[in-house]
């Protein structure tokens, strides 16, 4: 097995693990972590595509590598926005959950 095959299988495993966590964890911050696992799995798949494309004296295809860098930046920005929303949700006294039925607690308490 070459490093790129191993990394590809690793990427697939990470997507699977992330998906499992995304479905199962009720807490948005845990969902966000799971989402980031999926993200890095996808970047790894992109990474082996780049590695496989080694040619013309380069050990990688620079185009997908450039896309991965762009993707990592965008994924981080998304995490930051999600974290800001979660923090605000707890600051206005709402239990941090995605369940729309949960009412706001009148005492303005923090997340339980």
């Amino acid at each position, binding site marked *: 097995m070459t490093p790129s095959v191993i990394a590809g299988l690793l990427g697939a495993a990470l997507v699977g693990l992330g998906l499992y966590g995304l479905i199962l964890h009720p807490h948005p911050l845990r969902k966000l972590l799971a989402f980031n696992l999926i993200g890095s799995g996808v970047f790894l798949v992109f990474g082996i595509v780049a590695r496989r494309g080694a040619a013309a004296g380069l050990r990688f295809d620079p185009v*997908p590598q450039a896309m991965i860098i762009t993707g990592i930046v965008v994924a981080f920005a998304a995490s930051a926005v999600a974290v800001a929303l979660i923090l605000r949700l707890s600051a206005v006294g709402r239990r941090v959950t*995605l369940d729309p039925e949960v009412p706001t607690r009148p005492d303005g308490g923090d997340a339980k």
Partner: protein
Amino acid sequence: MTELWTTTPGGYLIVLAILLPLAGIILSFTLGGRSAERVALGSTPFGLALACAIALHVGRAGKPIVYVIGALEPPLGIALRADGISAIMLITTAVIVTAAALYARAKFATPDGIRESRSSLIFWIMLQSIWAALIIIFVSGDLFNLYVALELLTFAAVPLVCIDGRPETLVAALRYLLFALFGSICYLLGVALLYGAHGTLDIPLLAQRVQSTPVVWTAAALMTGGLLAKTALFPLHLWLPPAHANAPAAASAVLSSLVVKGSFFLTLRLWFYVLPGLSADQAAMVIGCLGSAAIIAGSVMALRQARLKLLIAYSTVAQIGYLFLVFPLATGAQSWSAMSWSACFMQILAHAFAKAAMFFSAGLLAEALGHDQIARLGGAARVLPLTFLTIALSGLSLMGLPPSGGFSAKWLMLQASIISGQWFWTLPILAGGLLAAGYVYRILAPALSDDRISLKSSPKRSQEVLALGLAMIAIALGFMPQTFSDILEIGRPIAAALP
């Protein structure tokens, strides 16, 4: 065919159309305060003019106009292309964004005595961002560039949902964000696989190279799944009603009539421009069934809502369902394919204008009455005749009664179903019309009663006229000449059977 990879006359207009709102975002953010509103409002006429100029060029040339960025051709570089469907969508977007900007002036003007207010700055920046992202989605010729545009759209839309800061809007925004991010990452995985299989992400180049392999099918499934989640196709619609119903009216209008169409547009790009050679009858059938389920489920849910804005949001879930009937009806080079294609775009446009008018009216009602409970609308039509005229006219188009854009769209869909021998699609189309009549009646019937109702404040005439204008456009679309359908065909690849 090299003309798809070289800059054509008028191609520079595409770049200008994109850079205008981007420059607007930068200026609005740097100057802040009242300048943000001035920049956004000041740029709308130019944006509208650019959209019209692009459409004129496309129509005159009869083929797509192209701009190769930096004169660096694909596959290494990126090419922008405006074809028939781009032109139509650019104009629609420009008109609705302009209307939303004018409508929003009343609510999102920076209050006196404050240098800068949170909600005003956010609204004006995000409105321009949505515009920029949609333009790129309509004209970009590169699947990764489209990914960045999709993310731009997400980042612009989510803050609008929770702009008034109530806890339930924060929950709605968070759900929307997680759904949208999941959709984007699925799309990106598909993009990675397509690049791995064919070494390019340029749409026409890919269309030449793709073959019916498991890798391509997996990529197509992932990208479609991700885009459907963003378009809120049943059963992935759960995020939409709370998000669209909780945003302020001007934002709801843009979200419901334009933002969901962005990801739908990409689904069309994927299947009809990247993968036209893939024979995907079964996949098209599944998507058609989901669309039908969306029509029924969305309409039934709309019938059961107590709040007007939620009713309108569920109606969006239903009306989106119609769009997906294009997949079983327009695949292949059959005679009915062009008819279904026009039907789909007529539905996009009719719904966009009617829904924006509806949300504008709902916003006016909520301001004037202090609530948007349908049960307490008794007698409201007497005191707000113009607003209810708008609701009635846009309701006409949603139901699909003649003459209206909604009627033209559904009539063409019915014809295409029958000609193509897929008569079973007529059932959800007709049932959806009846159910829509039901939920529009639910709004109008109490409002037309003799009850007395008091207004908290009287609505601004200019806002009422804006809403009415959009509803009139939805009606006027019913008189669209044949050239509409000709323009839509510009640059559409005809399916080539795979060996």
